[in-house]
């Protein structure tokens, strides 16, 4: 493997190029016309334009990407995450073109791409899934018996339905009859079927996922777990490792479940098996497997002390896990990642595009930044608005948390609004500090609030630049008159304050 084409953009394309360079492998970037000057292009050895801004015509354009690989002489393709990373047809086309696919074989993941099929695989592998039962006996006794197997709270669901339609949550046995009747009525009306089933509803569920690696020699290992319960509308916002509410026995069980699932499908490369963890019952249930590198892989890297991209590359070139992970995998300390999004907190966190007038990413010890942008770069409106990930490692969770907050305070992004104020506020929330969070927590806590924004910090930032004691109220006016004897040739002083714009000469 001499040259790897990275079929992606942004921070993950930059990060994969770095991984290639550790092994002396050349990195080829692809770019859309909107990304012609982008940072991931600047981080590669070579780059090829694969189409116009729209993803469907560029980053999802399999033919153009394969042509770019041919033109540059790349011998392998790394898909990153998103885009074509879990596209079985593309995987097959890559292999058919004689290139190495840095990821699992299509045949291993095709059978688990549907949730139901994956659940069956989990059961075959002895991996726990959320208790569920078919309601074939709709008598009072029948449904009570099924409900006892599943436990409360539970959901009554149409078997042939979808989209949550007809789904009824039931917290107590005495409410079961009414819920079943309602679900049946809706199901007949909507899906022309009276078949129902029940499934356990996990309250205050935590999202715990297991990083796995498989090699081409039949070995599968886990690289411990991550916790990603802090989500905004099902989008992960804070990820960490380890999950500090697990006991050692629970950790061992959930990690082994992840490994067993991957082994069952003959998984190769890096993947993630996702679970819901029920903090009351202390049980974990299989959700799905993500058959690619995850956004949040750096928290695992920090804690286990291994480079997962380098591991992917070495696995893809046929090395054994025993060599790739010589000395084995252990956890040390705690790592927390936040995703920095360009979004407007005061406008329902609407994604922001624009020019980054100025960016300063943090650079402190034990802090890692995986960024897709730097000062001067344009954030195109066509793609995901994630600017960067900031990851802090600490000897324990509190050490990591304090480091991450210091890093966020030192971060400067001008030109677009970001979620940094919200991240700082929630890293200081007592519930977060105490690790009492679940997948619905953040939406419940903040909704569309924009914590940490606004004038209090505004006054601090400007007035505290003056002597202490002068900062405070909001109505600020100015009196200084235009000065004489300017030493600098600036006619309009405001141009001097304009954002840092690099490359002025070109």
């Amino acid at each position: 493997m001499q040259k790897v084409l990275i079929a992606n953009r942004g921070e993950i394309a930059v990060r994969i190029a770095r991984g290639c360079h550790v092994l002396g492998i050349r990195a080829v970037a692809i770019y859309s016309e909107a990304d012609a000057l982008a940072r991931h292009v600047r981080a590669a050895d070579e780059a090829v334009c694969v189409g116009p801004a729209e993803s469907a015509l560029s980053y999802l354009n399999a033919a153009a990407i394969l042509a770019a690989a041919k033109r540059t002489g790349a011998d392998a393709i790394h898909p990153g995450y998103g885009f074509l990373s879990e596209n079985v047809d593309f995987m097959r086309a890559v292999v058919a073109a004689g290139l190495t696919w840095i990821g699992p074989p299509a045949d291993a993941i095709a059978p688990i791409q549907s949730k139901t099929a994956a659940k069956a695989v989990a059961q075959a592998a002895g991996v726990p899934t959320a208790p569920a039962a078919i309601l074939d006996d709709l008598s009072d006794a029948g449904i009570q018996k099924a409900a006892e197997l599943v436990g409360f709270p539970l959901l009554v669901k149409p078997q042939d339905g979808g989209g949550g339609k007809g789904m009824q949550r039931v917290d107590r046995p005495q409410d079961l009859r009414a819920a079943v009747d309602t679900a049946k009525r809706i199901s007949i009306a909507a899906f022309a079927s009276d078949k129902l089933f029940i499934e356990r509803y996990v309250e205050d569920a935590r999202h715990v996922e297991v990083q796995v690696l498989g090699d081409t020699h039949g070995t599968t290992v886990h690289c411990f777990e991550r916790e990603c319960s802090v989500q905004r509308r099902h989008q992960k916002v804070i990820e960490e490792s380890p999950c500090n509410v697990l006991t050692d026995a629970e950790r061992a069980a959930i990690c082994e479940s992840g490994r067993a699932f991957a082994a069952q499908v003959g998984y190769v490369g890096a993947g993630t098996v996702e679970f819901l963890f029920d903090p009351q019952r202390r049980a974990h249930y299989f959700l799905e497997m993500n058959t690619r590198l995850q956004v949040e892989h750096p928290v695992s890297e920090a804690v286990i002390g291994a480079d997962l991209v380098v591991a992917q590359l070495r696995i893809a070139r046929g090395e054994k896990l025993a060599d790739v992970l010589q000395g084995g995998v252990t956890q040390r300390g705690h790592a927390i990642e936040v995703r920095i999004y360009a979004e407007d907190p005061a406008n329902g966190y609407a994604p922001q595009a624009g020019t980054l007038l100025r960016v300063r990413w943090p650079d402190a010890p034990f802090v890692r930044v995986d960024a897709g942008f730097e000062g001067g770069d344009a954030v195109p409106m066509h793609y995901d608005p994630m600017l960067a990930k900031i990851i802090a490692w600490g000897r324990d969770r509190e050490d990591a948390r304090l480091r991450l907050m210091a890093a966020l305070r030192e971060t400067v992004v001008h030109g677009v609004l970001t979620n940094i104020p919200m991240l700082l506020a929630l890293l200081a929330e007592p519930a977060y500090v105490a690790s009492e969070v679940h997948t619905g927590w953040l939406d419940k806590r903040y909704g569309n609030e924009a914590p940490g924004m606004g004038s209090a910090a505004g006054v601090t930032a400007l007035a505290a630049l003056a002597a202490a004691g002068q900062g405070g109220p909001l109505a600020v006016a100015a009196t200084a008159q235009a000065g004489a004897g300017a030493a600098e040739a600036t006619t309009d002083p405001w141009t001097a304050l304009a954002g840092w714009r690099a490359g002025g000469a070109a």
Partner: protein
Amino acid sequence: MKRIFEAPDAARLELTATPSPGGLRLAWLGADGTTTVEVLARRAPNGDWLLDQDGITRPAQISLDRQNVWVSSLDGGDDRSGTVWFRRVEAKRGAAGVDLGVRSPMTGRVVAVHVQEGDLVEKNQPLVVVEAMKMEHVLRAPRAGQVRKVACAAGQLVEGGAELVELLDAVAEG
């Protein structure tokens, strides 16, 4: 050389910048409402500003575009970002002192314009839909009023902060 800015919560900043020997003199009114805070701002090669006052230097980042100013310092407090953002307050205002512009919250593409000049609109009535990053954002009338001007068309690319619709204040002028 004064400019007036407004934070999202309407806090105001009236800032004066004056070229001066050794840098730029920045001034604004202090906490007591009468004392002027005045600093000499020197620019570092990386674009940072170093603000001198009474023998103490404090670093800050200041960026300006046509409509906004961002100011960062290390002084946000332990759980607050050091970056604050103000939007420039333009001279043009309605009789009631209300900003007339309905602005795009983000750079994106206008996918629909629901009003035209002269339309009477109610509060929260959809005016324009802007799309960016596959998300649609509906801009609604911040109050009842009359559309004085539509400054965009469907399909057009617009910058964040650009005024898309100019609205006459219904109470004061309508």
